[in-house]
């Protein structure tokens, strides 16, 4: 599956403290026509990169050292309200679900397949899914 010809790809910053997850998402999102403009391993790097690169969206892991995903989401919503956000987490207990609901950020569970994440990115950026998706 690729982006339609003529479509501008969704530009995203991907944030996860695990390099192997970053590698996977870079490859998977590229195959789905999503442009990963930068990756970050904690929230403070993510915030800096978003100020520099103004991506359409951020894929944000939540449980990280340093500035975690909860804090980074709050900062980005305050400072860069035009940047769409998708939370991407291995597990989602009560606290994670309620925090993301309160922040109005869609939550996607980590998966070996990128479909749910790509759909969420299309939704938060207002990009229509290619026909047949």
């Amino acid at each position, binding site marked *: 599956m690729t982006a339609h010809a003529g479509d501008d790809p969704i530009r995203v910053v991907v944030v996860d403290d695990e*390099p192997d997850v970053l590698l996977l998402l870079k*490859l998977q999102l590229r*195959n789905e026509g999503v442009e990963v403009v930068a990756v970050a391993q904690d929230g403070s790097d993510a915030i800096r990169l978003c100020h520099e690169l103004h991506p359409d969206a951020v894929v944000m892991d939540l449980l*990280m*050292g340093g500035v975690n995903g909860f804090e980074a989401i709050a900062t980005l919503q305050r400072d860069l309200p035009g940047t769409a956000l998708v939370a991407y987490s291995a597990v989602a207990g009560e606290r994670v679900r309620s925090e993301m609901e309160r922040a109005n950020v869609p939550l996607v569970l*980590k998966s*070996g*397949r990128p479909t749910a994440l790509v759909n969420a990115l299309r939704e938060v950026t207002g990009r229509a899914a290619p026909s047949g998706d």
Partner: protein
Amino acid sequence: MQPEQLDVLRKRVMAVVGHELRTPVTTLRGLAETLHAAGESEIRDEIAPAMARLAARVESLLDDLLVAADLSTVLPVGRPRPASVEHAIRVAWSDLGHDGEPDVRGDVDATAIVPPGSLPRMLSPLLDNAAKYGKAPFEIRIRRAPGEVTIEIESEGPPVSSIDVALAFEPFYRGEQAVTTCAGLGVGLPVSRTLVEQAGGSVTLESRDAGGIVATVRLPGQ
């Protein structure tokens, strides 16, 4: 154990297993599928080492789980005999693979009377915690007294809650800071305490007023 306690333990184990294993397993699956579809050899060269790393991590987590399921399987055998504390610290540190050298002070020639081979295993989880959650360099002090040797591992760092200190030796418990920063199942400290107590000693944790933590191990000595 009462049924309610068993239920709490079951939920705690499943939450920890879910959290710690889900990321490497889902990432492995995704990489395997991407590898299958990858035409470019340089992508394959990136994916294959990542898959090996993730598989090793799953293997290590499963080993921890097996240990926690039956702690008696890790108990050493053999009559207690003198073992150099400083040497054990350096062996444990080297096995952990952390950078640098630990700062060991005090009675560095002291020996503890413990079952053979058990001292590095007792100290390893305490050193690992100091390295992961504290600020380097942390300090290790050895003190000898008649019939006893005391090892203190003191690390600076963020404040540690009294709940984390109280529950640190409970199997599968992971402190708030651990859950948000490092992989692990929460079985290192319980294994450490089992080994120390088998040798006739004790191990305690105390939070420092200025942040960070002090782990104190007391063992039979000469």
